[in-house]
């Protein structure tokens, strides 16, 4: 998930989510960086409205299932 957190970090501070930024954040956090996954992350996010995707509750995400007990 560290790739996602890096993307969220950049998004929240209004920075561009590109290979260079993602890599520098991950390195600063001490993660080994897999170039393929960085590229894949960026490609996957290309045509995604991040704000909307963050807001749309995924399947049984967050407290949804927690309501069960």
């Amino acid at each position: 998930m560290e790739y996602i957190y890096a993307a969220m970090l950049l998004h929240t501070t209004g920075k561009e989510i590109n290979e260079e930024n993602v890599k520098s954040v991950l390195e600063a956090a001490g993660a080994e960086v897999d170039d393929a996954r960085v590229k894949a992350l960026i490609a996957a996010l290309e045509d995604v409205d991040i704000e909307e995707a963050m807001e749309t509750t995924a399947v049984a995400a967050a407290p949804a299932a927690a309501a069960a007990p």
Partner: protein
Amino acid sequence: MAHVAEWKKKEVQELHDLIKGYEVVGIANLADIPARQLQKMRQTLRDSALIRMSKKTLISLALEKAGRELENVDSLSDYMEGQPALIFTDMNPFKLFKILEDSKTPAPAKPGAIAPADIVVPKGDTGFAPGPILGELQQIGIPAKIEKGKIVVSNDHVVVKAGEEIPPKVAGILTRLDIQPLEVGIDLRAAYENQTVYTADVLTIDEEKTLSDIQKAFSQAFNLSVNAVIYTRETMPAIIQKAASRSFNLAYNASILTSETTDLLLAKAYAQMLALAAAAAEINDEAVDDELKE
């Protein structure tokens, strides 16, 4: 002033000294409080408040006399009712009022008394065998009928509205139904504390409201802390959870495979396949192989 009995002068002086001796002076109505209950109240309030019954005239004289030094205390006499008594205490007047209110006990209906709250005859079996009482109940509007040999009230019914007088007939029925709508105890009408007079309505505390206000304040603080991202130890888990679920949503909705989303994304694809297969099978049975149908 005509020759005033010595004991009266002494009583007024004593009351006057008490009025000046305490932070808070209350005026209460002790009418129809049973002696035993009054005695018990004196007991519970022994070291926190002093209850002094007296004649109306003597009380107002004492209040008037004290009023020369204690501004506005004399206005307490406007609240004298029934069998008046002065209550002396250093306690917070609201606390005094609450203690006195909490110690009131239910009492049977008295014709002509004012109902403190709506008097309700509850739904259910009255315990009476069929007889003339059925007519009496219906006469004052109570929906009563006979069921399995018993007189039963078909649903809750308000016989007297709060603040209204209890008619004699209704009072009789209520007592026979063992419903005690009145309250009896020390009825604090007003309390004085450094130049301010707090009347009974002001002194009434709505505990439920206070509790719900506390809970409202807490959720407001909780919301503000999480929404404005102000870190506090108590709300940190919620803030992290918000960040975690937003990250999870992004990964899931953008179909990015991560340690947490891979299983679910595979499951999603599988479920979509099942749904599409079902839709196709509905239209044309051969479209789907038997293994899939299972």
